[in-house]
């Protein structure tokens, strides 16, 4: 089964949300991808690890990943951070004291939990803090709900982050990814 999956996955993943994200990162020369994992992000993380173009690894905290990609940017390497909604909620200090004032094009992909079928009340509460934090810092952010808009939004947003030297948060809605279902 694993073999069959491997054979078919490149083709199918091209058209999947995670395949599009991976290809868009590659096309924009985003090579370094630290993350704090999330169930929904699993196929993306797996495929990033499998592709030698990327240096991808887990960090203990999301702000640690933001520090790493800030250093990498200043050293000439483009990067992006993957996280879950609850992880974003830990970032207000590093956004306000590092990424924004130092003009770092921090590219964040946030797997959205806490809405559209959330089963953990704490997750739904923390989700409500995300957009107010982004808005209070006047940060660029987009919620991606449709597969046919994903490539356009991700590609343009990465380019805008780099050229305007400003962070961007790309929120991957359960409408796009399927989210995490109430089974575990």
């Amino acid at each position, binding site marked *: 089964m694993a073999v069959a999956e491997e054979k078919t996955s490149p083709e199918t993943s091209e058209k999947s949300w995670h395949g599009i994200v991976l290809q868009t990162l590659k096309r924009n020369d985003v090579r370094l991808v630290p993350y704090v994992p999330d169930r929904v992000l699993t196929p993306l993380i797996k495929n990033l690890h499998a592709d030698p173009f990327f240096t991808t690894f887990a960090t203990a905290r999301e702000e640690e990943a933001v*520090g790493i990609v800030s250093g990498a940017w*200043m050293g000439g*390497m483009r990067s992006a951070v993957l996280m879950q909604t609850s992880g974003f909620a830990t970032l207000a200090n590093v956004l306000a004291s590092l990424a924004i*004032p130092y003009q770092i094009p921090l590219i964040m992909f946030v797997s959205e939990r806490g809405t559209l079928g959330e089963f953990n009340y704490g997750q739904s509460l923390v989700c409500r803090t995300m957009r107010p934090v982004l808005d209070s810092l006047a940060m660029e952010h987009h919620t991606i709900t449709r597969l046919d808009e994903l490539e356009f939004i991700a590609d343009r947003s990465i380019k805008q982050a780099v050229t305007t030297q400003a962070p961007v948060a790309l929120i991957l809605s359960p409408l796009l990814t399927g989210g995490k279902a109430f089974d575990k």
Partner: protein
Amino acid sequence: MSTTNDTPARNTQVMNRFDLTSRLIAKLKNEEAVIGGIGNTNFDLWAAGHRPQNFYMLGSMGLAFPIALGVALAQPDRRVFALEGDGSLLMQLGSLSTIATLAPKNLTMVVMDNGIYQITGAQPTPGAAVADLVAIAVASGLTNSTWAADEDDFERLIEQSLSAAGPTLIGVRIDDKPGTGTTRRDPVQIRERFMHGMGVREPL
């Protein structure tokens, strides 16, 4: 490689942050990057003499080592130093494991340990009386972690790190003196000049 058990923290000489930082800077001949952590750590880096390869953190407490890791990964041929306080490191102990896993051989980390939050009123850190940060680093996978016994030992360990096969962490016991200078708080210029120093950009 580790001599943690042979030279426990309590037997090391109490040194001075500005003196050690100046000794480090005096050794740099190859445009090495130096990342200064929040507060006194980067104030003393500033006071030791500004160079374009210095990066000064004005917030984001605890991220000096992660930022340095990012620079080290982006530029594997350049030596990267990171200066961090003990209170700061306690905020981001997980980063030690991340660095140990990635094992960049061009990264040298210095922990300035005075056991206090000097800048906020010299309150003891939660680890001051009980924790050994070098032992924590070793247990996090950074096997090449050592307390510097005195200034000469610090300089020797810095030299040694230049040809190490993996990342190096050096713990130094320091006094309770405040920072010597005050970094100009201009994050955009700090970042832009650092990028010039890293050869990533040309000045306008």
